[in-house]
């Protein structure tokens, strides 16, 4: 196997077909696995600079202003008349050509047109910003309600929060919701959907027993169900205990800032950049993160303290490699590789 195939696999640079071919090779060849491990180690320092630089305030507004100015400078007659006709019909003298402007100097017209044009360009973003703010707050409130159920469950289970099992039908991140539902700690199935997503129907949340049954009898239905049962959120996958190698789950005793639940990350089939982009729930602007201490914070990138909350230290959507490697996965995510 070529080095660039392994590198492509590690960094998700391959198309699906090539990626699957590499996975098959990795399953069969210990030499390939050894090379991959070495490559991963060699790349590790790059991870220290994972946090994307934040854009300056008003970047969108300033960009649209520049676009509006350029548009009205380049094609004044067309764009000015188009903008002014829509935004301020009273400004126009009635003619669509620049030569027809009688009461206004050309510069006045261009400025007015730029402002009007900017208004047109900004219309959608302005409404989006308003709506995003509302939905972020609604989502944060939803997570706080879920925290009540999670903490009650933990109090009954040696202070451990619910999480997926290492193997078998309950080895899926969304099992957290199954646990809450089985324990009657979920206010409503609607809570598994982020209010920002206009999903009308809540998903069916199965019992653990139903999952066992489907896993044995109908694997296709099982896969469909586990993908939906966790809704729009991502759940802590647990971490591998460095000494025992067992899968462990977050407890009340952990750092109070440890993330336990968040808006779900993009799925690989949702297009390129899925492994670096923010959650799709809030238009890619960021994600609400619920911490062990119960507080919810909207963060604008995936890295908390340089730790990508959706990938482990090996850049995989799998359980953490240690107690400080926190990974939250979509409903269907398994904590351990097959």
């Amino acid at each position: 196997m070529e080095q660039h195939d392994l590198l492509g696999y590690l960094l998700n640079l391959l198309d699906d077909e090539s990626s699957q071919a590499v996975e098959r090779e990795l399953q069969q060849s210990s030499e390939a696995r050894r090379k991959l491990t070495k490559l991963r180690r060699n790349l590790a320092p790059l991870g220290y600079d994972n946090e994307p630089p934040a854009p300056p305030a008003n970047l969108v507004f300033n960009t649209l202003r520049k676009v509006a100015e350029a548009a009205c400078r380049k094609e004044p007659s067309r764009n000015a008349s188009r903008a002014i006709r829509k935004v301020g019909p009273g400004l126009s003298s009635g003619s669509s050509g620049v030569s027809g402007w009688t009461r206004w100097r050309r510069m006045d017209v261009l400025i007015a047109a730029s402002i009007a044009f900017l208004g047109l360009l900004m219309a959608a973003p302005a409404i989006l910003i308003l709506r995003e703010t509302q939905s972020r707050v609604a989502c944060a409130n939803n997570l706080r309600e879920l925290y009540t159920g999670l903490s009650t469950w933990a109090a009954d289970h040696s202070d451990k929060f619910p999480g997926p099992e290492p193997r078998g039908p309950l080895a899926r991140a969304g099992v957290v919701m199954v646990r809450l539902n089985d324990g009657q700690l979920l206010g409503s199935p609607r809570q598994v959907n982020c209010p920002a997503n206009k999903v009308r129907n809540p998903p069916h949340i199965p019992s653990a027993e139903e999952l066992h049954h489907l896993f044995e009898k109908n694997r296709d239905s099982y896969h469909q169900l586990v993908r939906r049962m966790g809704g729009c959120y991502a759940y802590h996958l647990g971490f591998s205990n460095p000494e025992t190698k067992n899968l462990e789950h977050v407890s009340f005793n952990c750092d109070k800032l440890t993330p336990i639940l968040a808006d779900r990350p993009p799925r690989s089939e949702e297009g390129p950049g899925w492994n670096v982009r923010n959650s799709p729930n809030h238009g890619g602007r960021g994600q609400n993160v619920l911490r062990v201490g119960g507080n919810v914070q909207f963060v604008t990138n995936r890295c908390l303290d340089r730790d990508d909350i959706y990938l482990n230290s090996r850049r995989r959507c799998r359980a953490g490699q240690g107690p400080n490697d926190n990974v939250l996965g979509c409903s269907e995510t398994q904590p351990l590789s097959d």
Partner: protein
Amino acid sequence: MSENLERSESLDLCSDEELLTRFRQGQLDVFGSLVRRYERELYGYLRRYLGDDTLAEDVFQNTFVQVFQNIDKYQDGKPVRPWLYTIATNQAIDALRRAGRRQAVSLDQLRTTDANGELHSLLELMPSSAVDPFEQLEQEERRERVRASVDQLPEHLRLTVILAYYQGLKYREIADVLGIPVGTVKSRLHVALQKLQEAWRAGAAALE
């Protein structure tokens, strides 16, 4: 107002390609949605590549001016993301030419001294679990040194690393953005990582 809200919600669900198609058909306000959608990603890319806040902001704005002015050249259905990256990259290269090439990062930047005046190399910078002010400071130093090591790569290699590692583009997309064959992308990335390894090893050797 509610009609506008519904419209902006529907824009939210549109793919990039649908947005540009609607814009070409005269729906002006979708352009703002596109800018907003790419605000973080494209600015992050430009900031990494250009290494300067003001220049990155300027190039980001010029990129969308170009998109607006060249919308007729966009072919319906063609993936928007690589197209935007291509425009942004060309704009960034032009900006660098105008501003004079950014100063090469000194190899010495791969080493740094701590409060006791002791030299440290990148290879020393392996993770530890503690989260305290000193640890945070160390993390910040690690980040700076990794960035410096990437910055000192030749431009064509640096671009490839940024697009592949930090921006998450596929081999095929990087090839489209840079206008080179996929095989060249693979070899560039391979060479870039070799150079990074050498730089990191050199940082370690300096301590001995």
